[in-house]
C-alpha cells in the first residue's frame, strides 16, 4: 500500500512537471478556432502543423536557435572554468579576505542585474564586441558567475577535507589529489552549475535585446517575441510551436548531461 502511494505521488509529480510541455505541444497543434474556445481541449480536435510551418516560414528560428546554443554552451563552459578554481579557493582556504569575498558574492545578488550592464556595455564598446555573440557571452557569464560561484563553493565544502588528506598520506601530490579525488566528487556540482548557466543564458532576453541590435545575430528569445503584437495580443499558435522547439535543446542538453550527474555521484567516493 505504501509503495503504491509512493508510485502514485511520483506519477502525480511527473504529471505536474510535464504539464507545461504537454500543454505547449497541444497548443502548437491546434487551429486558431480551437485556441479561442472557452472550453480548452487536451487533444486537438483537428491537429495541424500550420503553426510550425508559419513559425518557421516567418522567422529564422533555426539560425537564432543555433546562435542561442553557441552562446549558452560557451557561457556554461566559461562560467564553470572561471568559477571552479575560485570556488575551491573560497571553500578550502579560510581567511578574512575569503569571508569578505563570499559576502560580496551574496551582496552582489541583491542588486538588479541590469546595473552591471552599464560598465559592461562600455567595455564591450571599447572591445568592439557590441552586436556580437562573444559580447553577449561575456555579459551572460558576468551575470551567471556570482551564483555559479556560490553554488560550486557549496559543493566543494561538501567534499570531506579528510579525503584529500588521505590521498596525501598515500603519496598523492596536490594536483593528483585534486584530479583523482576531488574532481570526481565535484562532478555533480559541476554538472548542476553547467545546467544552471546554460539555462540562464538560453532564456535570457533583456541583455540580448540591448547588446544585439542586428537581426542577423538575434538569439532565440529575441525571435520568439516577434510573435507578439501591440496591446499584448499574441499569435498563440506559432508562438507555442516556436517555444516548443526552443525547449528541445535544453531538454537534450539535460538528457545528455544528467547521466554524468548520476555517475558523478558514485565516482571517487570509495577509497580502494
Amino acid at each position, binding site marked *: 500500500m505504501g509503495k503504491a502511494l509512493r508510485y502514485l505521488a511520483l506519477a502525480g509529480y511527473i504529471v505536474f512537471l510535464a504539464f507545461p510541455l504537454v500543454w505547449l505541444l497541444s497548443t502548437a497543434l491546434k487551429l486558431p478556432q480551437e485556441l479561442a474556445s*472557452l472550453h480548452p481541449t487536451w487533444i486537438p480536435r483537428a491537429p495541424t502543423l500550420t503553426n510550425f510551418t508559419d513559425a518557421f516560414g516567418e522567422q529564422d528560428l533555426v539560425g537564432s536557435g543555433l546562435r542561442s546554443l553557441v552562446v549558452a554552451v560557451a557561457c556554461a563552459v566559461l562560467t564553470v572554468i572561471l568559477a571552479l578554481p575560485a570556488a575551491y579557493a573560497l571553500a578550502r582556504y579560510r581567511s578574512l579576505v575569503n569571508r569578505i569575498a563570499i559576502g560580496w558574492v551574496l551582496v552582489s545578488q541583491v542588486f538588479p542585474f541590469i546595473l552591471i550592464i552599464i560598465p559592461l556595455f562600455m567595455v564591450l*564598446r571599447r572591445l568592439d564586441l557590441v552586436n556580437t555573440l562573444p559580447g553577449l557571452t561575456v555579459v551572460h557569464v558576468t551575470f551567471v558567475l556570482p551564483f555559479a560561484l556560490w553554488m560550486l563553493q557549496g559543493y566543494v565544502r561538501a567534499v570531506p577535507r579528510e579525503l584529500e588528506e588521505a590521498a596525501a598520506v598515500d603519496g598523492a601530490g596536490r594536483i593528483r589529489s585534486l584530479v583523482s579525488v576531488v574532481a570526481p566528487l565535484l562532478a555533480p556540482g559541476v554538472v548542476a552549475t553547467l545546467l544552471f548557466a546554460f539555462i540562464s543564458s538560453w532564456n535570457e532576453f533583456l541583455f540580448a535585446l540591448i547588446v544585439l541590435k542586428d537581426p542577423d545575430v538575434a538569439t532565440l528569445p529575441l525571435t520568439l517575441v516577434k510573435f507578439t503584437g501591440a496591446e499584448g*495580443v*499574441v499569435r498563440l499558435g506559432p508562438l507555442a510551436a516556436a517555444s516548443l522547439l526552443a525547449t528541445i535543446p535544453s531538454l537534450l542538453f539535460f538528457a545528455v548531461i544528467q547521466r554524468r550527474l548520476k555517475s558523478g555521484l558514485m565516482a571517487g567516493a570509495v577509497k580502494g
Partner: protein
Amino acid sequence: MRMRTAVAASLLVLAAGCASESPAAAPDEPVTIKFQSLAWQKESIAANKELVAEWNKANPKIQVEYIQGSWDNVNDQLVTSFEAGDPPDVIHDDSPALSGFANRGYLLDVKDKIPAELKSDIPQPAWDTVTFGDGKGGQGVYGVPFLQESQVTIANKKLLEAADVRIPTPDSPWTWDEFAEISKKLTKGDTYGVAWPMKSPVNKVLNLSLNFAGTFFQTDGAGKTTVKVGAEEREVLQRIHDQLYKDKSADPSALGMGSADPLPGFYAGKYAMLPAGVYLRQQVVEQAPDGFEWITLPPLKGVSSEQGAVSQTLSVAADSKYPEQSLKFISFFLNGANQVKLAKGDWLLPTSVKAAADPAMTVEENGWNVATASAKSLVVAPFLKVNGFDEWKSKVATPTLQQYFADKITIDEVAKKLVDEGNQVLERYNK
C-alpha cells in the same frame, strides 16, 4: 519596461560617441538602407516583404534591407540604437513614441522633405499626430502617418437580431444612451450585453472621452499643462462604471482582461458586444467558430463621435546616412495603392485618402465599410502632445482607473487623484 528604457538610455549615453563613422557612399554607388518594420501578423509581414521586394527590384541603386522588430520592446531597442549611433534608416513605430524621440533629436524633421503628392494624400489631422516640438522651441514633422486605429464595437449579429434592436450605421450611429439601453436589453441569463476589457484602460478612456469633448489636459497661455477632470471627462468613466455596477449589463470579470482576451467568451455568447480597436476584426475572422455571425458597429456618439487618433508611422533616423533615399522609399511604400495592402494586412485604417476610397476598403465583408468610415471620427489625441503623459499614465492614471472600474473608489476620488497626483508628475516636465 520603463526601467529598462531608462537604464538602457543612461548606459548608452555614456557609450555614445564611441560609435564609428563609416564614410557615406559616393553619389552613384548603390546604397543599402535598413528598414525596421513592426509587422507581426502573417498577412502584414507578407505585405511588407512583398513591397520591399518590389522596391528592390525597381531600384537597384537603393536596396532596402528588411528588419523585423517587435512592438513589445521596440522603444527599448530603438533607444539603444539611437544612442549607439546605428539606428535603422527607416523606422516603423507609433506616434506617441515619436514625441520623446523628436525631443531628443533622434529623428529627422521631414516637414519640408515630403513629396507633395504624399503630403496631400494624407489629411492634416493625421499629420498633426506626428507634429511635435523639436526640443529647441520649434515644431517639426517626425514621421509619415500611415495606419490608424479607431474604436468600434464588434457585436454578435444573432443576439442583436434576436433582441430586435436598431442596427446603427456610420451616418446614424448609436448614442451612448442608446448603447446603454441596448446593452441592458441584451443582458439575459448568462449573457452580458457588453464586455469592457480594461487591463490597460487609459488610452481607451481618453480616446473615447473625446465623444463628450473630454480632453483630460489643458495648457495655459504660458505653455504650462495641467490635468483637468471636469464634467466632460467624467462622462465616459461614469457610463462604463454604470454599465458594470448600476445596470449590470457589463461583465465585471472581463475588467482585468487585455483587448483580445474576451474573444473566447464573445464567441461562446457570454457577451453580446465587445468595444474594440478595428484591428481586432482580424482575430475574429481567424478564430471565430464556423457559423458565428458578427457585425462591426460604428463608433458611439456623445456630443460627437470624435475619438483620439494614434497613427503608426514611418520615420527617418536623424543619424541616417541616406535620408533622401529613405524618404524616396517611404514615398513608394506609403503610396495609396500600397497603403491598401498594408491596411488590409494589419486590419487597420489607411491615412491615405486614395487608399480609403479603394473598393477593398469599403466592402461590407468583415466590416471594412464601417471601419473605414470610422476614420472620419479621428482627431489628434490631446494627450499625444503632453510632455510627461507616459509617466502620468503609468504612475497615476492606470492604477486610479483600475481602482475605479473595480468599484473601490468614487468618481470624485478619481478626479482628485488624477489631478493632484497627475499635476505633481507634470510639474517636473513643465519646468
